Structures are given as structure tokens and as C-alpha cells.
């Protein structure tokens, strides 16, 4: 067993009861929690009940599940000589809820083979409902809009009509999310609304659509991800004996990332733990999933403060250099007292300082490296200039640091895609962690190209793409780039110029395009094309089969990696469902569906072939959002776009994504409907005052973004570069300012930080 420092040992010495562990970034939280889990598994094994009882570990993401599973498995097997994967279960909240519902589906009102719909389906249902609502009621919405500043109010009206479904969808999504989190049925909210006599438009939209949405799901015999949690709760509450059985099965509950725990998760785990053995681990300063979810960072803080809960903080961290730790600690300190920030933000970060590890600790903090705040007072920088500076910096730095890891962290995906494009153009090697896993995209993307071909085999353009993007790379994947004598480009061009694809694919007697005297292709290329033709024919012949069988047939030929094959299998199941729900869909429609999966437009259960999550590769730049970077670390980190749009601080000059410019009084409609429903459900309609929720939402957003910046900073081991830009609309009179925190860090760094 690797050495544990005393604070970690204190966690592992846990015996029973409730314990809260507040861990700073890099404190070895996963390591400690894995050891604790392994020890508890051993205890169950010794008692001879490891088959009947399990340690339940609940974490936030699928990759964290994989990571915990294999870490605990290794400790259990190697250090304690037990069977791996026995005696414990690692789950996300949703997969835990899925387990529970699957044990007693009827208790939750579900049939045996219930289906979990993906985002595409929920998106379609919501869009249909919103459009239908708008068709009948759009004029009602005008009460919430402002037409004051428009040059042409008619044109603005037209634009609003166009955008109204999206507004309605957003309002409904908020109501559905909060209702499910609170386990409120549509009819319950409606009854309370009538009782309260509160006939508010936004609430009405929300309830109408919630009702329609649930009915649409039921009609399909399906549930969505949020339903799983709600239904698991319903099942546990409906049958106390069932709850007791599960409490007995899971005598210990370890909760990771507890700072992002939602109300539903809190309730579910509270129910399952039955007030007994519940260990909650997290970092309140890394609560970055609260705004668009129903998570609440205070839940963990309050839990730790409760009497009877063991408080076992992990304060030491060996991850970052002392200088970076000092900068992160300064951010905590500054935010708690800065006059530049409204008082409401003084509690955004908990006063929990990172302590470097003691001499002799196994994990020593790295030497100080470079810290650079790329902003100067009065300086303006366009988004393009920011990326240019990044590329220049990387080009100069990478050749001398081939054994370093490096990341560019951005506030949102769209910025990440721009960075990726620039690095590609500059010839810099990179990997992106943007939205769904790239494995999902590549497997679904390849299948989609094949479907495009099956839908349109007479198109030489599609045939050419099939060859260049699917067939050639897949059949030559083992050749390194410099070993490839031929690029697919020439052949692809010839195929693209083909007049009739049947002359190549199914030539008549004497009409084979490959044998034509004008053919300029090399013999080797012709041989390759013959193989390609065979495959293309096989796929075309298979295209008469149901969609799932077509996918399985082609994936057998395209993929060799187990996770790709598993993903293709899953895609086959999903496409089968889509085809069954839409009997009129044909190949072109299915190709469109696959394109949606391939282009990230929906959440898709990805199969990750690495059990330990993402491992940054040396001298390959990782591009990720700051959210996706959580739990990871790099030697050098660039934080980009640190301006007051991405990181507002509740100042009058700040602007917010959730406030639309054509909505009056800067109202945040999602926040307003949230407040309306809360007032209704608490039976206190008088407590709702328009605008207050929008103001509070600004503070919440600003607080979370401060924490996000803290997460970004603490990803760096040695080097840290903080950058900013003025935003896309700088020349339209909407110029963003540097984030208040960036300015504070700049002042700190040129002053005491650098010299202190």
C-alpha cells in the first residue's frame, strides 16, 4: 500500500456513522476514498457477506465510475487478495437510480422493458410541444418582451415569433427539471396553482408543457434520465420493505463530489443510508455544476457542520507549485472580502486554504514554474488575437518541453472548437475533451457516412467520401503516416469524377470502370478499389435489412476495438428504437439521425475503453472546457477568455447568457419561473416578486463562475497562463471587460505574489 499522510489515514480509519471530508484540489481524494472503500469491502468479506452486501460508491461522471471501479478492484485484489469487483458497486446518481428502478419497475409504474429516451427524443418532444404552444399563445408572451430599442419593431416582433419556441422550451425545461428533482407530479403543481390563485403565465407554460411532456414519454413507455431518480425515490417511498432491503444490501455509502450533489441525490442517499453509515467527500470550492442543475454546494457544507458528523478535512496537496497554490489561495481570500464584489459573492468560495505537503511526504509539490497574467491595464484584445497569442506561445514552448503535459482550458465548447481549428492549422498536435467522447463521434460518424452512401449510392460524391473517410483509413490504420505511399486523395478525386457509380460498383459486361483504358490509377490502387467495391456491395446488399442489422453488419467490418464494437451495438439498439417509433423513416432519415449522434447534438451513452479515465499525453495539447478538466491536471495550463461575460461578478456592466436582450427588465425567465413554482408549491404566492429571482440568479452565476476559475487555476502543476479577450461583439458596442478576478490576480501577481 502506498503511504498515506496522517489526514488521509484519519479518513481511512473511519469505522461507522456519518463523516464529511472537505478536500482541497489535489489532496488525493480519489486515492483516499478508494482505500477506504477497499477496507470496508474487506470488512464485509471477513463477515462473509460480501456477496449479499456491498459498499456503495456514488460519484458524478461515468469516467469517475470507471476510475473508482478499477482502483478499488486493484487494491482489493492486489493488496488484500480478494476477488475484484465483488463487494462494492460504483454508480452515478442516474445509474444507481436505474439499478433501483430495474429491481422493481412495477412499483415505479413502469413495464419490464421500459426505455430511457435520449436527448434527441426529449428534444423532439419539447420542440413539438413548444411550437404547438407558441402557435396558440404567442401574443401572451409579448407582455414579457421589450420592443423599445428596436429600429423596426415589426421586424423584432417577427424575430421574436421565430425565437419564441426556444424561450418557451427553456421555461418548460426549467419547470420539468425542478419538478422532477422535487418529485412533483404535473397534476400536483396544477392543483396547488389553482389553490393559490396564482395564474402566472410562465408557471402556466411550464405546467402545460410538463403535462404534455410526461404524457408523450408515457405514450412511448419511456422515461428520461431525471425520471429515473424521481421514480427510484417513488419506489423506495412506496414500499418501506424494499427500502429496508436495499439499506441492508448497502451498509456503507461513500459519496464522491458531494459538493455537486443535487437535492434529489441528497434525499436518495439519505433514504438509503437510513441515517447510518454515510461518508460524503467533496470540495465546496469546486461546486461548478449548480447553475444548470439543481445542485446546491451548501448541502455539503451544512452536512459537515451537523452535530455527530465526523469532520475530516484533507487540506494538504502536492499537486501544484507553491506559487500556484498561493495564487489559488489568494483568489479565495480576495473573493471573501473584495470591495469590487457585492457582499453576496463573499461566500462564493469557502475559506479553505490549500496547504503544501510536508517535507518527507511521498508527493512533494513541484518547483515553481512560470505564471503569467496576460493582461495589462488599458489593453484591449480581440478573440482572434487571444488565439494568435496562444498559438505563438505553444509553438515557442512545446519543442523544449516534450515531456510536459499541457492543456488549454476554455469556458465553453464553442471557444474550444475555435482553438482546435487554430491548432490544427498551426500543425500543433492536440486532443479535445469537448462534450461527448471523441470515440462516440468517430464510431457514429463512420456509420453515418456509410448510411449516407446507402441512402444515395448513385452519388459519386458520397461514394468518394466513403472511400476517403471510411474505407481507406480503416483498412490502412496500421500504417504510420510516413509509410503510406499513397494518399487516398487521388483515388477519391477519381471516384468523385465518376459519371455513373454503377460502372464501378456493379459494372455490366465490358463496362468496368476499373478496366477502362483511360484509367490513370496505379495497379495497387486498383487492387485496393476492388476490395473497396466488394465491401460497398456487401453493405448495399445488406441495406434492405432493418437498420440495426445493417449497422451490426457494417460495424463488424469497420471496427476492431472492443469499445467501438460495443458502441456500434448500442447505436444499433437506438436506431432500432428510432425506426420502430418512426415506421416511415428510410435510410436518408436514419442517416440524419446518425449525423445528430455523430455531431454531438445529443447526449449519448458512450463507451470509454480506458478504465482510468483520461490520461493527458506528453507534448500533445489537451483542449477542454474548465468543467471537463475537473479531476485532471497538467504541467502547464492556459486559461482562456477570462472576461466579464464568461466570469461576471454581478456588476452593472456585466451581461448574462440567461438574460435575453429582448426580454424586458433584464429578466431571466428560467429563474423567474423557478421562483413562481417555488412560491406556488410552498403555498406562498405573495412571496413572489418579479425580478428578484433574476437578480439572485446573477449572484449565483457569478459565484459559480468564480469557483470555475478556481478549478481552472488548480489544474496546473507548474506553469499557468491566464488570458482574456473582449468578446465577439466588441465592435458592436458590446465590449467585454477583463473579469474582476483576473484584474485582482494580476495586481496580486505583479505585487506580493511574485515576490512574496
Amino acid at each position, binding site marked *: 500500500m502506498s503511504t498515506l499522510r496522517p489526514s488521509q489515514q484519519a479518513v481511512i480509519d473511519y469505522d461507522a456513522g456519518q463523516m464529511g471530508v472537505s478536500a482541497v484540489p489535489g489532496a488525493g481524494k480519489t486515492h483516499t476514498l478508494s482505500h477506504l472503500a477497499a477496507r470496508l469491502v474487506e470488512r464485509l468479506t471477513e463477515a462473509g457477506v460480501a*456477496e*449479499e452486501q456491498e459498499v456503495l460508491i456514488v460519484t458524478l461522471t461515468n469516467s469517475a465510475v470507471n476510475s473508482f471501479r478499477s482502483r478499488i478492484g486493484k487494491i482489493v485484489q492486489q493488496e488484500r487478495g480478494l*476477488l475484484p469487483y*465483488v463487494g462494492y*458497486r460504483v*454508480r452515478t446518481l442516474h*445509474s444507481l437510480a436505474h439499478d433501483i428502478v430495474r*429491481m*422493481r*419497475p*412495477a*412499483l*415505479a*409504474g*413502469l*413495464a419490464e422493458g*421500459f426505455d430511457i429516451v435520449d436527448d434527441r427524443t426529449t428534444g423532439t418532444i419539447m420542440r413539438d410541444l413548444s411550437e404547438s404552444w407558441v402557435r396558440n399563445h404567442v401574443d401572451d408572451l409579448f407582455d414579457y418582451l421589450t420592443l423599445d430599442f428596436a429600429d423596426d419593431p415589426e421586424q423584432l416582433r417577427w424575430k421574436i415569433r421565430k425565437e419564441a419556441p426556444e424561450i418557451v422550451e427553456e421555461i418548460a425545461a426549467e419547470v420539468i427539471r425542478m419538478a422532477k428533482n422535487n418529485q412533483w407530479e404535473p*397534476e400536483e403543481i396544477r392543483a396547488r396553482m389553482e389553490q393559490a390563485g396564482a395564474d402566472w403565465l410562465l408557471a402556466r407554460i411550464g405546467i402545460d408543457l410538463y403535462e404534455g411532456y410526461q*404524457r408523450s*414519454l*408515457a*405514450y412511448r*413507455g419511456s422515461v428520461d434520465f431525471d*425520471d429515473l431518480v424521481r421514480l427510484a425515490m417513488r419506489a423506495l417511498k*412506496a*414500499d*418501506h*420493505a424494499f427500502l*429496508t*432491503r436495499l439499506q441492508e444490501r448497502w451498509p456503507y455509502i461513500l459519496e464522491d463530489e458531494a459538493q455537486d450533489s443535487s437535492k434529489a441525490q441528497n434525499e436518495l442517499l439519505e433514504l438509503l443510508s437510513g441515517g447510518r453509515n454515510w461518508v460524503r467527500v467533496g470540495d465546496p470550492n469546486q461546486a461548478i455544476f449548480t447553475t444548470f442543475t439543481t445542485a446546491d454546494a451548501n448541502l455539503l457544507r451544512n452536512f459537515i457542520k451537523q452535530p455527530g458528523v465526523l469532520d475530516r478535512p484533507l487540506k494538504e496537496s502536492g499537486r501544484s507549485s507553491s506559487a500556484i497554490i498561493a495564487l489559488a489561495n489568494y483568489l479565495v481570500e480576495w473573493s471573501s472580502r473584495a470591495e469590487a464584489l457585492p457582499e453576496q459573492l463573499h461566500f462564493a468560495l469557502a475559506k479553505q486554504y490549500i496547504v503544501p505537503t510536508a517535507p518527507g511526504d511521498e508527493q512533494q509539490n513541484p518547483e515553481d514554474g512560470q505564471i503569467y497574467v496576460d493582461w495589462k491595464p488599458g489593453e484591449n484584445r480581440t478573440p482572434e488575437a487571444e488565439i494568435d497569442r496562444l498559438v505563438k506561445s505553444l509553438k515557442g514552448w512545446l519543442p523544449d518541453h516534450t515531456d510536459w503535459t499541457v492543456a488549454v482550458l476554455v469556458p465553453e465548447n464553442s471557444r474550444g472548437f475555435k482553438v482546435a481549428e487554430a491548432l490544427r492549422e498551426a500543425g500543433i498536435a492536440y486532443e479535445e475533451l469537448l462534450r461527448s467522447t471523441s470515440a462516440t463521434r468517430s464510431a457514429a460518424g463512420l456509420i453515418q457516412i456509410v448510411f449516407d452512401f446507402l441512402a444515395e*449510392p*448513385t452519388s459519386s460524391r458520397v461514394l468518394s467520401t466513403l472511400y476517403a473517410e471510411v474505407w481507406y483509413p480503416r483498412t490502412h490504420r496500421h500504417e504510420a503516416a510516413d509509410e503510406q505511399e499513397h494518399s487516398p486523395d487521388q483515388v477519391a478525386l477519381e471516384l468523385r469524377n465518376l459519371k455513373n*457509380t*454503377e460502372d464501378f*460498383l*456493379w459494372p*455490366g459486361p465490358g463496362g468496368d470502370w476499373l478496366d477502362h483504358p483511360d484509367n490513370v490509377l496505379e495497379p495497387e490502387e486498383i487492387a485496393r478499389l476492388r476490395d473497396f467495391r466488394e465491401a460497398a456491395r456487401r453493405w*448495399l446488399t445488406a441495406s*434492405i*435489412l432493418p437498420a*440495426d*442489422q445493417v449497422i*451490426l453488419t457494417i460495424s*463488424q467490418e469497420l471496427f476492431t476495438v*472492443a*469499445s467501438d*464494437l*460495443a458502441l*456500434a*451495438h*448500442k447505436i444499433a*439498439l437506438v436506431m*432500432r428504437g428510432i425506426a*420502430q417509433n418512426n*415506421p416511415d423513416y*428510410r435510410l*436518408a432519415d436514419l442517416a440524419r439521425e446518425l449525423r445528430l449522434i455523430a455531431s454531438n447534438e445529443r447526449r449519448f*451513452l458512450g*463507451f470509454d*475503453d480506458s478504465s482510468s479515465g483520461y490520461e493527458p499525453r506528453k507534448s500533445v495539447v489537451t483542449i477542454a472546457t474548465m468543467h471537463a478538466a475537473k479531476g485532471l491536471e497538467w504541467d502547464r495550463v492556459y486559461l482562456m477568455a477570462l472576461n466579464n461575460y464568461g466570469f461576471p461578478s454581478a456588476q452593472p456592466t456585466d451581461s448574462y447568457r440567461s438574460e435575453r436582450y429582448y426580454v424586458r427588465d433584464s429578466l431571466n425567465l428560467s429563474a423567474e419561473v423557478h421562483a413562481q413554482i417555488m412560491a406556488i408549491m410552498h403555498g406562498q404566492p405573495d412571496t413572489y416578486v418579479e425580478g428578484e429571482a433574476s437578480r439572485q440568479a446573477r449572484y449565483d452565476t457569478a459565484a459559480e463562475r468564480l469557483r470555475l476559475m478556481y478549478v481552472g487555476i488548480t489544474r496546473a502543476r507548474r506553469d499557468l497562463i491566464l488570458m482574456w479577450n473582449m468578446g465577439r461583439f466588441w465592435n458592436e458596442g458590446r465590449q467585454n471587460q477583463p473579469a474582476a478576478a483576473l484584474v485582482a490576480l494580476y495586481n496580486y501577481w505583479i505585487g506580493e505574489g511574485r515576490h512574496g
Partner: protein
Amino acid sequence: MTETYTGEANPRSMFVEGPFGAGKTTFALETLFAWLDARIPPERILVLVPQRTLARRYQLALRDSRRGPAGMVELRTLGGLAKDACTLYWPFIAKAAGFSRPELEPQFLTIETSQYEIARFVNTAVERGEFDAISVSPQQIAREIIDSLGKAAINELDYRSIPERLGAAWGPDRPRNRLLAYAAAGRVADAYRTYCLEYRLLDYALQIEMFILLLRQPRFREQFFGRHSHLIVEHVEEESSLTHRLVREWIPTLQGALLTYEWDGGHRFVLGADAEGGSRLREACNGVLTLDRSFFNQPGVLNLHREVACSFRRPDVEPVPTDEDIAFSYRHSGFFPEMLDWVAGEVERLVEQESVPPTEIAILAPYLSDALLFSLGDKLRQRGIESLSHRPSRALQDEPDARTLLTLAALAHPGWGYRPPADDVADALHGAIPVLDPIRARLASKVLYHPRLEDLLTPFDRVNPQMQSRMTYVAGQAYDRLREWLMEYRAGEPALLDHFFSRLFGEVLSKAGFGFHDRPEAGRVTAELIESAQKFRQALYETDADPLEVGREYHRIVRQGLLSALYVASWRDELRDAVFVAPAYTFLMRNRPVRYQFWLDAGSIGWWERLEQPLTHPYVLSRTWPAGQVWTDADEFYRQEEMLYRLMSGLIRRCRERIYLGISDLGEQGFEQRGPMLRVFQQILRRHPQPGSGEN
């Protein structure tokens, strides 16, 4: 043979019990032949089986016995007896049963047509929000209500008591809105029943209820019980309480009766099997023969059975000594397709290296998704091994040949108002005219098919010569023949759809130069389609119904994937030398043991049969469940455990040499698998570590 007999020296009725493979059916067959040899007329002998697959051994034995008219021995199920009774006695009973216009003939509904008929009532209720308390699709609601009606009938319960029984079992402490859903299901059932009575539609439940009604009539009883003098009831543990009552009343009237009972059976509980009731029938017999040793399993398999029993803490079972063989192997894979590869590889090894005939191998899973079935079949095919699936049904629209026929039918009936998409026409042309490869079929559909024109299809010579040459003239000729046939048909009165399919097949598609020529598989699909269209018509329409209307409706519901073919495996299929791939329960009911079994997805929770359903319940709607009693979590859990034990026991008993477990960490859907069967094997592994198996 270890056998114990208790009872009279020459019993008229005998109860034969024991595990699978102990020789019960062999004994029953010997008895049957003894009766025949004693000149009992074969038509006076009845063999009653819980489902048709279990009659197979009798069919083969009678066929092979060369006893001439022995084939006249009747092999029936209770449902078959009920249906016969309804047909024969309809005029005498229809009025009493509440049917209107009993002078007209009744129409028998299949499960599918019953669901079709009830759908209108379900949909109305769903639209009114009456089922909002549950998240279940209208099709599933229909299935569960039909299922409840059948269960109530077979348990001799009044179907009107279903909501009350389910409500009482739901209990007073759970959310009350479920009772609204039960009540809504009750109203739907009422409306549907009224409709059936009005239109003389007999679904399974009504057939059984009428049969019960008839059994109360002395005249019927006299004729029914007097018809046979000798009775064999196979697998009484798989029969319902109604059958048990019937048999109990029947035995005193018979000159010879033999009942077989398999220990740890009762697998058809979802269909109303009452194993305990079956066991009690021994009291109605004059002698009980116990055959307690299986001659089928090898010692390692018997050891596995013992170990499984031990893990389930069955009484009086001790673990197997550690030095003895336990006949199972396992492979732990990360992903689902990896597990399938391993299974296919092991099957190949058995077939190629150990010369095991494929027919001696069964691959079993809790569920068989289409993707799994196709994928596994494909992997085996690539290794030169045939597989045979026993799926109960498959959507007609998934059969390419059926789709060809259906698309051509749409082209022949423009009056339906449905114009098939160009892709379907391309597929149909490719299917009908083999010289049109998939690309040329697309071209042909593009230039020859005009959904907006009245004729729909253009003659080949109307397109430009360049395009004609691209499609080839040979194809053009075949196309014109097909088109002319369709046009000629359209000129006349529309035929019944089954007749149309029959003519299209006989007059065009089966001819040389067309796609169904010399393809028995296409002939089989056509025959199935004809049968399906015919059954649909006969079940739902009066004889004088408008063929155009019937055809349009049939075509619509097939297109929507709502109607499956009635897939009955032919004996020819069963004789094929192929690996059998099936859901575990289907394999059990097929009752044909094998040397090797593969259990797929051993971590799936699907191995654990769930009893409670949102709108129905096999136990609560059984005769033995005390009305008013709450179905608790303990009931659910312990009965699930019991069923899992019986399932595993039943499967192991049907395996001679070894069981292979495929474990996939992530299931088909990508969820980690932690089903209850894994725990059983972990306990066995702890007692008997297997160094040879492990991760892929």
C-alpha cells in the same frame, strides 16, 4: 433406476414424479404403448400437455412406433380443448354466455388480434389521462389488460374483480393514484368485453370462460368426459389450477390415467402454472411412482446443480467436496460484443475440435434483442456454424421478401391512398427482379416510379435510351412484365389481399427471371404472409367486408410494425443441425436437453423474473392468492429467488456435460451488470476457485 412406488397394486391412475431426465416421460410413453397394445382404441386416449412444444416427444414416438392408427391418439392443450368446445357447442352456449346474435358464427381472436381490438378502448382512456399514474405505452397497457383477462379466466376469477384484487395487493400505504390506473384498466376491460360479446369475438379469456360454463352443463360433461377412456397429463406442474380441477374431476371417470410431475418446475407461472396445485394431484391418484435420479447429467453437472442448490440454501444440501469437478466455465469480458466473440469461438472449438454436433449446443439469454440475435447468428455463420432461433414472433416488415410483396401490393392498390416511398419501391424492384442490382434498382425507382401520377409506374420504353441502357434491357423486360401484371390486376376488381399475394407469387415472382424463383425461403415468407393476411381478415371482418378496406387496414398495421407473423417453427427447422439460440424459458419449454449450454449475459438482471407488473400480476390474479392480501417486497424477493433457483435448476438438469457462462461487464445498453445470478456463481467460485477462467 432409483424408484419408489407407493399405492395400489394395479392402479387405475398413477402420479409419476422426479427431476428432469429421470425417465418420467419414457415411463408415460411405455404406459401409452401398453394401452395401445391392450387394444385401447387410440382415439380414446388423450395426451394433455401445457403447451404444444411439450407434445413433441409423443409425436415422434407415435410416428416411429409403426403402430398404424396410433397417430389418432389425441395430443391437446387445455386451450385447444376449450376452443374445440366453443366451436362445437356455440349454438347451445352463446346466448347464455351473453353473446348477441348467437345464430351467427363466432370469430376467434389470436393474442395479436385481441390487442388490436382492445387498442381503441385503451387509446381513448390514455388520451383522457386515465393512465397518467403509470409510465407505460398504450400497447403495453393493452397487453397487460389482455393478460389479466386470461389469468382471471384460467384461475376462474370474475374478470370484474381484477381492479379490486390488484388494488388490495398494492396495499393501503402506497400512493393511491395507482388505484386509478387499475380502475381505468377495469373500465377498458369492460368496454372491450361488451364489444366482444356484441360482435361474437372470442379471445382466449372468453374461450376459457365459455369452457368453464360448459363444464357446468351435465350434458356437456357427459359427452366431454365420455369421449376418452385413458388420459396422460404431461407436466402437471406447468398446468393451471383450472386444468388441475378438470383432471381431478376427470380421473374417476377414466379407466387409466397417468400424470407426470417434474420437481422444481412451474416455469410457466406467468402463464398461470400452479406447481403446488400440480403436486397435490398425487392425492387424486391410486399410486405414486417416484423416480429420483437423473440419468442424463454427468457427475460434474450434477455437482453444479448441487452447488447452485447450496448457494440458494436449499434444505439438506451439502457443498460438493473441493476436489470434485464442477462442470462450468466462465469468461469475464468488458464489453458485450467481446462476450459474443468468446461464445462463438467456444462453440466453434466444440464443433471443430471436439466434434460436438451443433444441435447439441444451446445458447441461452434472459432476453434476445434483435441486435443480439443477428450479431450472434452472424458470428456463428462466419465460422461455418448454423444457428436456429426460436423467437416467438418477428415483425413481418423485417422480412425483405415480405416487404417486397407489401410494396407491390401498395402499387397494385392505389385506392388505399398510400404511395410507398421511392426507397421501398427500389427495394421491391431489387427483390422482384434479380438482375436489377441495388444501384440500378434505385435508378429504376427514380425514373420509373411517379407517386403523383395515376399509373405510378411508367413503361420502360418511355424513358430515354441512355437511362434504359444504364438499367439494362434485360431488367427492362422483367420490369415490364411485372408492371403489366400489376396494371392488369388494377383494371379488375380488387381481390382479397391473401389471394392477391398468392396470385402475385404464383403468376409472377416465382417464375424464372423473378426474385422468388427457386427460393424456398421466399416461398415460406409468402406463405406466412398469406396466412397472416387471411387470419387478420377472418378474425376481424365479416365475410362480406370490402376487400379494399380490409387490405388497406392490414397494410397499415403491418407498416406500423403492429402485426407480427405467426411464426411457428416447422419440424424441418428443428431437424436442422444448428445451434439453438433462445431465451432461457423458451428453451425450458422446448424440453429438449443438450450436451452444452452457454448462458449469455450472466450478470443481467433479466435472469431475475419480475412478477409484479404495472397492471397485472401472476400471483395476485391466481386462485391461491388470498383476496385482500398485500403483495410485499418480501413476497416479490423470495418468489424471485425461488423462480431463479427453479430456472437455473431446470436449465442445469437439461444439460449433460458443461455450462459456459458469458459475463459482460457492460450490458448491451452500456450499463454495468450486477444481476443476482452473478452472486450465486461468486459463492460457488469461492468454494471452488477456477484458475483457468478470467478476463478477456
